[in-house]
């Protein structure tokens, strides 16, 4: 029962993340949505590791290494964004649509 609830909650968190990163135009909100997906995956991993397998060191190592690396990647992206934010290009990092832009201009060309 408990692991079912954890799994369902993490799936809901995953769906929130997917919807948010496709829907919101603001780069901040996209990054927050990505955190939701990441946390959902980590909750799954740790929940399964503890409740199904009685803790496997392999899963913990996976979580440790991959979370550190993903945060490194995100850190670099946000660092770049931060370094590019100066007076006359603020708000330039808010996309007009979500992460993917479903427009005919990008697809076929003008």
């Amino acid at each position, binding site marked *: 029962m408990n692991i079912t609830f954890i*799994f369902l909650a993490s799936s809901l968190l*995953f769906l929130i*993340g997917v919807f948010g*990163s496709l829907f919101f135009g603001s*780069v901040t909100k*996209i*990054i927050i949505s*990505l955190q939701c*997906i*990441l946390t*959902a*995956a*980590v909750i*799954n*991993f740790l929940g*399964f*590791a503890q409740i*199904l*397998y009685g803790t*496997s060191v*392999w*899963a913990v*190592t*996976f979580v440790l*290494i*991959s979370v550190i*690396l*993903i945060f*490194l*990647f*995100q850190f*670099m*992206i946000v660092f*770049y*964004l931060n370094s*590019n934010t100066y007076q*006359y*290009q603020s708000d*330039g*990092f808010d*996309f007009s649509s979500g*992460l*993917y*832009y*479903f*427009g005919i201009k*990008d*697809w*076929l*060309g*003008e």
Partner: protein
Amino acid sequence: MDLIKSINTFMNPFGSITILLGTILVFLFFANSQTKRIKIFSFIFSMLAFVSSFVINIIGFLNNGVYSDNLFTSGLVQIIEISYILIISIILLIIIFVFNGESEFYLKLNIIFLFSSASLIFFTISRNFIVFFASLVFFLISLFALATLMNESGLFALKSQNDSRKSAIANIYNISANNIVRFFLAVVFSLLFIFFAISLLYGVFDFKNFIQLAEGIGTYKDNLGFVFSILALALYLYYGFFPFQSPYIRVTTGSSGVFSYLMWLFYFLPGLIFTSRFALIIYNVKEDYKTILVFSLALITIVSAIGSGLAVLKSKNLRKILSNLILLIFTGNILNLLLYIVDYVNEDGYRMLNYSGLSLMIISWLPLAVIFTLIENNTGSNDINGLRSILIKNKAVSAGFIISCISLIGIPAFAGFTHKNYYMSIIPKAFAGGLSNLTPLLSWAVIVSVAIYLGFFIAGIIRIIISGFTGKVDIYNDKAIFSKPALAFIYCFIFLIFVFGILYLIGLFGINLFGLNFSSLNLF
């Protein structure tokens, strides 16, 4: 003696990586240097590193044979893939040096590029999911660093300009930085999909590596469907096929020219390797899920081929055309997977089809891209209508243009024929009852997807040829300059197109030349 033995056993999986990482360590000491001599020295040194790691990769395999432990596996497949990666790296190194050799941070670019190649080789030989995922992230991190550093040169225009001009240039810089950030956020999105899928996989069974997964898939197949669909979505997002292509198209059209080469030649390789791993695993359950597998793969192929093909047919932007052609070439991988699932080709044939797609990209597509870049540098615009006015100026360039286009179409005696031959032969074979192990509906799905893929590919190339000869001629454009290295580069690839095309034909007809039997080359 023991030392030599231990070096020898070390050489097979790790020799090439060690050389690349060692080169990085050497370069770290003068990463900030601006001297021209050191730049040239570093170019030659890293070139030597790539060549020697290529040699060691092959020698190590010949000496040691197959290597396998709980983290890495290295057999003939991995050796071929690493060879492709190293060849592409050498080409990219030359391109980076030609375009960014004068740049202030060429040495840094060199270091990061070496790191990205090394992590891609890691990715190729990885077997455990931890190493697999971590090396993928390392590769993408280094790609991000390369993208941003190449974009930095746009910043220096900001010094000593008046304010209105400053704001205009800042806007251009801003747009390209924006594109890069959006693209890499999309990449993180697909990466997190993979991460989530592996976590779901872990809920089914204690799978730790690909071998366990391939063995266990028969037992746990009822619970693995969702996991594999999430993995497939992740791959789809990673490739950026039709509805999700906009970040990729924007980053290749709206950032520096060199980075778009990196995107075209380098970014998709992990996707290809991942797909082939994935293929071998789902092949074990193909009998149980044949209908759904065939239909979904055919649907992906058709949607992606139509999407990218229409873009090649309609777009006027040269870089957009090149990007969509690459997407079409990599759509071929999904088609190969489909042919593998329906048993039209065996495992070796499937791999060879994938490699022939890569060869098509390197040998036939690359000269076209180089010609387009030269045109872009000469005219300063990306418009396909300016193609003719440049082609008229130089006969060598126009000959290269026609030959690479013909090779992409796949006419016999050109290198691209190897890629098309397999797909072409499926249609008569299907009517002759070659796909008899399928229901009629499924075999029609396969035939339709092959036909649509080939149709859009060939139509796109024909469109490029036609617009190369019907565009308007700009009389003011007399200053078209083609540097000698660039021309040599194009000549070299034209030569390769002929050599590989003729070798393939000799193999196909089973002719013996000088006592050599070329029919073993048949599949390449």
